[in-house]
């Protein structure tokens, strides 16, 4: 491990952030609300908070638009000086009241930012007044209380506390948690891929975010037999709470499986957890593996001609980083030189993440692992390594990095439109090869 390099770059001013890789807690709660279709967020904040997220979450998350309830259509109390002095509760009350008349939605999520928290508005009390008029929750997320990942957890927490009721368990129903909208760049595609693979194996899957009926999907959470958390750390709190309140067990799948090998073992793992007949899984695995490896023949030439045994680096949120590092090492024969984990996981999960990034790799080369979110320090780390391929965020696109081929795979990425694209699952591995190879095969 490169203890020296780590010490040199990390110790300066640890908290200052250059080109951050996530936004505030309000940002995370906001995109979560937008992702639960049919939910109208109501921001209790300054007028600019929501627009900042438009650029900082939606565009940064693969140039996405915000959809019907986002951006300039999001109701917002637009707090100004007089509210800072006299309080914003009255403004919020009339905002919610008018929102219910003007904005048609299934669920309203009041998300409070820095100002109300600093001036001490009792937002809970105001929101309560509307409980009998509509489905409404309050997500308390002063921006300074955390980042986008925390905001996602705050959203789930508010849903669990204020919306969910016990339901009889539905057999073979699972919820998918931990893939944070917009922060996991390929969240929409990854969720859909996971859903469809599991469904083919006979599982009912509630992906919650980007289900057609967002409120229905949220309310159905307690009916699941099992919760799957697709991250080594995000979403675990929610899963624990769901276990406590609704007695739902959960399993942490610490990364998004990329390519046939990991996807197959993931399917068998779920099969075991849900007692699925093995033949169900066998069937899916057989069909998909055939096509995945058949596809490998198609990209075999360009891989061995263009990027054989490439020394590669990954800069991404922990779950994405693990999945890509494993696929590159175990299936494509690349050599993992370094991994920079950019989602700022809590101290207590870092050892496990480090382990997942360095164990179980086919290559003799093991990656150096860094935890860093600041772009400048990431640049310093990169300068000390020579790579042939870098999978990162678009912030790294124009760093001097020798001859390295570059593809953006993580947040923020302003250089790609990402809607359905994903590297998850069997076809995800092929998609990754297509995208990587297109960076050096084209545009000549």
């Amino acid at each position, binding site marked *: 491990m490169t203890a020296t390099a780590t010490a040199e770059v990390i110790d300066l001013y640890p908290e*200052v952030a*250059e080109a951050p890789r996530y936004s505030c807690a309000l940002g995370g709660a906001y995109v979560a609300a937008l992702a639960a279709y049919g939910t109208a967020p109501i921001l209790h904040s300054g007028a600019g908070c929501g627009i900042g997220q438009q650029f*900082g979450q939606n*565009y940064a998350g693969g140039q996405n638009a915000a959809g019907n309830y986002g951006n300039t259509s999001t109701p917002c109390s637009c707090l100004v000086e007089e509210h800072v002095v006299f309080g914003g509760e009255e403004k919020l009350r009339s905002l919610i009241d008018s929102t219910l008349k003007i*904005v048609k939605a299934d669920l309203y999520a009041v998300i409070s930012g820095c100002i109300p928290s*600093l001036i001490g508005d009792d937002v809970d009390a105001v929101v309560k007044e509307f409980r009998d008029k509509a489905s409404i929750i309050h997500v308390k997320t002063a921006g300074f209380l955390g980042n986008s990942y925390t905001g996602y957890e705050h959203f789930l927490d508010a849903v669990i506390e204020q919306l969910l009721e016990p339901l009889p368990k539905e057999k073979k129903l699972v919820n998918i948690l931990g893939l944070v909208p917009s922060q996991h760049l390929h969240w929409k595609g990854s969720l859909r891929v996971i859903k469809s693979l599991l469904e083919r194996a006979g599982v009912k899957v509630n992906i919650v975010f980007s289900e057609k009926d967002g409120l229905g999907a949220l309310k159905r959470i307690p009916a699941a037999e099992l919760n799957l958390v697709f991250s080594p750390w995000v979403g675990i709190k929610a899963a624990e709470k769901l276990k406590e309140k609704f007695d739902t067990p959960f399993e942490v799948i610490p990364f998004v499986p990329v390519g046939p090998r990991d996807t197959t073992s993931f399917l068998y793992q779920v099969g075991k957890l849900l007692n699925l007949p093995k033949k169900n899984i066998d069937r899916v695995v057989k069909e998909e593996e055939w096509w995945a490896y058949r596809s490998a023949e198609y990209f075999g030439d360009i891989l061995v001609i263009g990027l054989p045994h490439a020394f590669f680096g990954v800069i991404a949120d922990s779950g994405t980083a693990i999945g890509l590092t494993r696929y590159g090492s175990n299936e494509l024969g690349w050599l993992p030189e370094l991994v920079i984990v950019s989602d700022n996981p809590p101290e207590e999960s870092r050892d496990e993440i480090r382990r997942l990034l360095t164990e179980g790799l086919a290559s003799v080369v093991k990656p150096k692992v860094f935890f860093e979110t600041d772009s400048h320090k990431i640049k310093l780390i990169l300068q000390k390594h020579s790579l042939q391929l870098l999978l990162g965020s678009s912030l790294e696109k124009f760093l001097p990095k020798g001859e390295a081929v570059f593809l953006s795979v993580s947040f923020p990425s302003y250089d790609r439109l990402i809607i359905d694209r994903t590297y998850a699952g069997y076809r995800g591995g092929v998609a990754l090869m297509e995208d990587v190879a297109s960076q050096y095969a084209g545009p000549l």
Partner: protein
Amino acid sequence: MPTINLNTAEVPIRESRLGSVTGYKGSAGELCRRSRDGSLKERERSFTQCATCASITAICQVAMIRDAAVVNHAPLGCAGDFGNFNFINRAGQAKRGWRLANAKLLNSNLDEQDIVFGGGGKLKDAVREAKTRFAPKVIFVTTSCASGIIGDDVAGICEEMTEELGIPVVSISCEGFRSQIWATGFDAAYHAILRRVMKPAATRRPDLINVINFWGEDIFTDLFGRLGLTPNYVVPFTTIGQLERLSEAAATVQVCSTLGTYLAAGLEEHFGVPEVKAPSPYGIAGTDAWFRELGRVTGKEAEVEVLIAEEKERIAPELAELRERLAGVRGFVSAGAVHGHSLIAILRELGMEVPGACVWHHDKRLDHGDPRGDSLQHVVTEYGEVPFSVCNKQSFELVNLLNRLRPDIFIVRHNGMAVWGAKLGIPTFLMGDEHFGLGYEGLLNYGRKILDTITNPAFVRNLARHTRLPYTEWWLSQEPFAFLGEGA
């Protein structure tokens, strides 16, 4: 009468300085009249949607200065959009053939601890770090809602750090809650530049013209070159050295006085650089007036007349053709204040109808106070009345209005607003380059673009068929400005 006071650390907000308002419905002419006679009052809404804030607009002006750094003293979310500034910065660098590098922006990352105990220490660390990382000539420190409310003495800390680091560390007071008019953020950034960066002129450069703009295409090198003048684009993509010497210019022009009113007036009042006071250079009448005034101020009257004659002759055949094809096409316009007025001029010049326009705010006057610069009055005088409103980017009002008027085309600035035209099935375009419609060629540019846009509405029709609007039927049947309260 002095209007620009450089002795205070904070810029007076537009509401108090320019009598600006965020809500109005009526006609353009009436708005001009009521702005002059003092009867125009702000009208509050009981329903509001996300807009923008002064922090974003202040940073957009200083973030792209090549050898300056910006420290945003705020929780991380306020820096969420730094990636986007990075994107704009790169686009500008690429266009100029410069090496592509990340923007020099830091965020001090205020957390719960700092909120309780104060964020001053962290700010100092961030400023020191900015110096080490970027070796900038100047560090700008922008404030935020949180830093303002917890009462960090940002101006004081900046003075201290100036001493410690030996380079100007300049505070920009742009707390989002201070003003409903986010253009106040432009003023805050310019205030800092006028106060702390600019120097009195040692020499004068009679050919140099300051052009206050965002990041549009370079069209002035050619146009001004024909007059023997050289454009000096400010503020994005300049250097501190260039900003220090803004005072040497022969004049200041603006492509949009909503953006540059404060800087232009400050340059004239405190550094003796005359401001060209004319309507914006969009549409033939406006462009004529703008160039003539520039010619008068710089002593290039004769050259300007030649330019005007040549340009008009050059565009005449295609303009005639465009007018014929666009006659009677109905275009709705939405943009920041003066740019909106400019777009109306373009459409009317092209022979189109303007069934309505809606701008984000309205300044009763500009900082220079000269009625010749009143671009809305210019539009009314030249092209007649237009139904006009001020909607502060409130898309519920806009959607309602568009839904009623059903124009043939919707022309809009600001990303968040454009999609609503499309979702209603109305051919829509958003022009990010503010120079696209400028001058004589700009008329042709717009004419062609409008024709292209209305030629194939397949996408917007499909989108409209398959999206449901987020608004209730009830709302869509109400009068568009039903939530706009009576003036105080």
